């Protein structure tokens, strides 16, 4: 347990979910990439095997004491299993070089069995890393698997722009691809299930920045709802994050049945509280680039304070987080400032006078 806390993340999250007293509000900076630097590794090294992958997360956890470890199945996970080729940059996140599907009429040729651990070495690595993390810190901290929603999974098989264009030109084949991706994601989740993990669905391509609400309702909501129902049926909790501006779709996002709603910094937390705060716990949303990467300690504290000002009284609760993944190049001290500010403003019981 971190020296500045009185509860372990596991104790805290259990109490928080049950509406009981906690020592502080949960804090969850997105540590998908920057944790590697805390472990003294670059991103290629982090990705090189289960040990380094686990060590990155654990090093981040030891330093910050934040409230969840991550197994990052990744934005391109389904696509890679299907044969999309990615690069392996030393200091950058992976990007797709060649897509598995060049023609939407070939969706039927894709094989969902390929996502299973025994066929997908990448999933085997993530799973082994998750085992290491849980063996090391599982008694005090929960582990969340970050995976994509069906739409972003589709964009890892077939290029984003072509997929968006197909919403207009070829919606039926888009639906077939989404059907396939939803089934794949269910399989991936089951592959993790015996570890007792939670899930966070990240769906950046389903953002309001990318598509209209009507298309979200039509092409994203039904498949996501199905996935969430499936995971709930398996007893797992589900968080939901969509990048960019989701102001117009927060209601249908909550309708998917997820347990926590994570908001990008492009969304006003006050607005989210008004619209859906009485239905769901809100997670957010310090600017990862403007504040965490480019700001100083003062800017970080100010941004954390603003989040509390806007959301501390959200009826179903509030979790302090960043609005998206903290950039790899952000100063590590800013993570310490972030946690310190979270501990200061999130001390239980919350003291409204602190936010004035």
């Amino acid at each position, binding site marked *: 347990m971190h020296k500045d806390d009185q509860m372990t993340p596991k104790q805290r999250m259990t109490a928080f979910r049950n509406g009981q007293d906690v020592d502080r509000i949960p804090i969850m900076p997105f540590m998908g990439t920057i944790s590697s630097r805390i472990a003294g590794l670059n991103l290629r090294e982090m990705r090189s095997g289960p040990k380094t992958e686990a060590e990155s997360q654990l090093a981040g956890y030891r330093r910050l004491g934040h409230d969840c470890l991550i197994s990052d199945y990744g934005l391109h996970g389904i696509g890679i299993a299907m044969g999309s080729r990615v690069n392996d940059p030393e200091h950058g996140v992976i990007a797709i070089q060649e897509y598995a599907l060049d023609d939407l009429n070939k969706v039927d040729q894709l094989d969902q069995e390929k996502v299973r651990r025994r066929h997908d070495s990448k999933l085997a690595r993530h799973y082994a890393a998750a085992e290491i993390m849980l063996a090391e810190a599982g008694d005090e901290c929960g582990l969340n698997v970050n995976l994509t929603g069906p739409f972003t999974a589709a964009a890892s098989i077939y290029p984003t722009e072509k997929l968006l264009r197909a919403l207009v030109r070829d919606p039926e084949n888009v639906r077939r691809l989404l059907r396939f991706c939803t089934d794949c994601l269910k399989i991936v989740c089951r592959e993790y299930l015996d570890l007792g993990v939670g899930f966070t669905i990240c769906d950046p391509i389903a953002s309001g920045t990318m*598509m209209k609400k009507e298309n979200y309702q039509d092409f994203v909501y039904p498949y996501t709802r199905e996935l969430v129902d499936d995971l709930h049926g398996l007893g797992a909790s589900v968080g939901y994050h969509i990048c960019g501006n989701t102001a117009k779709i927060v209601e249908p996002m909550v309708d998917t049945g997820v347990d926590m709603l994570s908001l990008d910094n492009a969304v006003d937390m006050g607005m989210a509280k008004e619209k859906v705060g009485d239905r769901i716990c809100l997670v957010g949303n310090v600017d990862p680039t403007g504040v965490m990467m480019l700001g100083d300690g003062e800017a970080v504290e100010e941004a954390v304070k603003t989040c509390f000002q806007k959301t501390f009284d959200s009826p179903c609760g509030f979790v302090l987080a960043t609005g998206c993944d903290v950039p790899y190049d952000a100063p590590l001290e800013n993570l310490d400032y972030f946690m310190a500010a979270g501990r200061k403003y999130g001390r239980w019981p919350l003291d409204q006078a602190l936010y004035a």
Partner: protein
Amino acid sequence: MTEIICVTGFLGAGKTTFLNKILPICLNGRKTAVIENDFGDAGIDAAVVGETGAVVRELSSGCICCSLKGEMKAVLLALIASESPDVIFVEPSGVSRSTDLIGALSQMKDGDSALSVNVVNLVDVANFEDYLEAFGDFYGDQIASAQTIFFSHRQGLTQEKMNELANQISEMNPVAACYLSDWLEMSGEALWELIQDPKDFVNTPAFSGSGEAKSGAGVFSSWSGASDSRFSREDLEAILASLVDGQMGQVLRAKGFCRGEGNLGWHFNYRRGSVEIKSVDAVAEGRMLAIGQNLNTAKLAELFRSRPV
């Protein structure tokens, strides 16, 4: 100071074609670089890069929203430091918001000065209405953030439909210079001129009451010619003076080189009524260009005693 020109537009709008057309022109004496996003279509022609010597860098952002600023900054600053280019073309992903891109670029500096950022947007007008209805705010944002807008895929659209789309687009961005004619038929020189000083082409008297598009948008066309004829300074002054009276159409910009007497040549520049003529070293072949509305290309050719390029 490095000039940044962002060429934005959704898949199929012609970003790469545009770059292939304008790069050889831009490179005329300028050190040029291109930053391409690998989310986009096929890259610029290897032949164009080979001929021109432009420096090309790729962005490989894994998450569209998050890493744009960080990686863009790193690539751009490294480029400026190592190559000190005069012009950097940025071809972002077709789904990126120009506002975010401009925001990221405006935080960067070239030495002590801020970067000058110019945004060109290519709109696939055949699909404009469908895309506007289906896509999120990145699409409208690309239009609203541009200084110059070009229409692609105009074939098959009636003039009436074009005007309707032009009105809609100029409502989304009343301050952009909106080029409705077929830019594929324009010379690279003309495109370069148009994007250089878009303000020259907006809200000029030439547009008011044109009836073709509301607010700031205007219908431009261009003309280019080549000529072996020799002109005296007086000839040239008379020709350029005649551009003002409207007989050649509404010429907003004309420039070029032409042969003078003996070993002399002329470089001329006509900009909304003001004329500049400089003598230069011998010119092997005269080349001239005009941009404006309702250009009388036959008359322009006659004036410069030119042949088509």
